[in-house]
């Protein structure tokens, strides 16, 4: 028996478990760490699909950067969890209705009748020299060059907007100007004074210290 199905079921089982734990655990830090585990396992599943570029970028971007910042914020929060849980029973009927509708919609879209080998042919197996990164790049920068660049510009606008929304200069805060600090010369700060020794022998005494 090939080892691939075994790996697939291991990674999927851990992924589903971690995804459930993200919403089930009480501690937000644990929830964030379970999300990291979920990302990791989906990256492993993508590796099994011969999509190594996507897998590695998922780890690099989401696990390595986004979740670090997430943890950074979550760890700083000092939230009291009890008021958050108040009214759980009160809101449960509404929540259940929304959840059931969403579940049904998902079932319609990705139900079993739309999948299976008779609906979607298995993708061709690639040899060891198949390079997923190069394949993606050659399509992304030729066929999809304009959508790619438009997406990049939209992201840039979002960054600028986020910064300008949060940037505020309060008059009472003190901060240094690094450019001025870097340009400081010794002559501006230190003045060497040459003077006669006042008492003979005191210089020798100071040297001994």
């Amino acid at each position, binding site marked *: 028996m090939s*080892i691939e199905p075994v790996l697939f079921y291991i990674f999927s089982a851990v992924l589903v478990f971690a995804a459930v734990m993200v919403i089930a655990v009480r501690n937000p*830090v644990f929830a964030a*760490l379970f999300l*990291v585990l979920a990302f990791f396992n989906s990256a492993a599943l993508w590796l099994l699909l011969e999509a*190594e*570029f996507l897998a*590695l*970028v998922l*780890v*690099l971007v989401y*696990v*390595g*950067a986004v979740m*670090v*910042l997430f*943890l*950074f914020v979550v*760890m*700083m929060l000092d939230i009291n969890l009890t008021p958050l849980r108040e009214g759980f029973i009160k809101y449960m009927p509404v929540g259940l209705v929304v959840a059931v509708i969403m579940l049904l919609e998902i079932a319609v879209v990705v139900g079993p009748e739309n999948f299976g080998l008779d609906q979607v042919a298995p993708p061709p197996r690639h040899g060891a020299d198949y*390079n*997923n*990164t*190069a394949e993606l790049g050659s399509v992304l920068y030729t066929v999809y060059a304009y959508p790619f660049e438009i997406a990049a510009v939209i992201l840039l606008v979002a960054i600028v907007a986020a910064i300008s929304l949060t940037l505020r200069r309060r008059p009472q805060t003190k901060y*240094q100007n*690094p450019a001025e600090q870097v340009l400081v010369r010794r002559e501006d700060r230190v003045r060497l004074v040459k003077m006669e020794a006042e008492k003979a022998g005191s210089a020798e005494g100071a040297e001994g210290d």
Partner: protein
Amino acid sequence: METLLAVWEAIPETWQNLLWIIVKILAIAVPIMLAVAYLTLAERKVIGYIQVRIGPNRVGPRGLLQPIADGLKLALKEIIIPTRANRFLFLMAPLLALAPALAAWAVVPFDDGMVLADISAGLLYVLALTSLSVYGIIIAGWASNSKYAFLGAMRSAAQMVAYEIAMGFALVGVLMAAGSLNLGEIVRAQEGSLLHWFWLPLLPLFFVYFISGVAETNRAPFDVAEGESEIVAGFHVEYSGMSFALFFLAEYANMILISALTAVMFLGGWLSPFQGIPGLEDLFAWVPGIVWLLLKMSVFLFLFLWFRATFPRYRYDQIMRLGWKVFIPITIVWLLVIGVAIMAHLGPWFD
């Protein structure tokens, strides 16, 4: 011998492959662990001589057994778990710090074809794994239930994210110059002579990468995560015994890894520095490539120790300014320069 061969033949082929890979992993990991042990001794000796001291010289001849005595001492010490600390995460954090530092070695080529996993996206793999090492520090800081440890973890998280971007951009430059993500291909693209190595066309990226590497490993002068004069020992203040030793192993293993990667990407990896010089090339042709790689790595490791003995610690806002406002713009500008050089087929690197 023949019975051994017969036993080997009896194992199914998948298991044979697996066993063979495990043997290779041991062949990489065990020398790294030894190198880590002796790097600690080298650090104390080098800094000692820089500060006109002798350094450790009591255990064994000329102090050569000092790392073993240190390791034994740490192994025998009690592991103290602070009250109300999160036990599982507290013990998990040192492992999370060490594992990526070792796993990244899978794609490092020691010689032509001498690599554990010759994968096409090696550079991305290295970048993804080195970005994981911050988790050990963050989790250690949070799980310790201590203010100083938490401050260290927060500092380190912000610092790592900042310098990872500069590091990633520097690697993009290497990828553009080599035209491949495979580390072996990157070395082969530098073939020719000492001047063909990427340190020359990518000089600013070379500096940015190595300095970011020093920052990523939390070494002086960027060691604010530890900052013993401000926050005692930062993220590992509550750790003792073997769990503390694992953090140390991770830090030094990361130093060796950064040195190896810098050597592979900018100094021609296993290539001989005498390549292309008429008389000397033949004279040194017998030296195996791994020796050149180890020599280049030693240069960078010495730089790590030299930095620590020389520079005072950066102030926190200066670190952030250097990462975001100096390094990232430099790398972006230099990527444009490389793009133009590649389009112009600038020799001898891009023709």
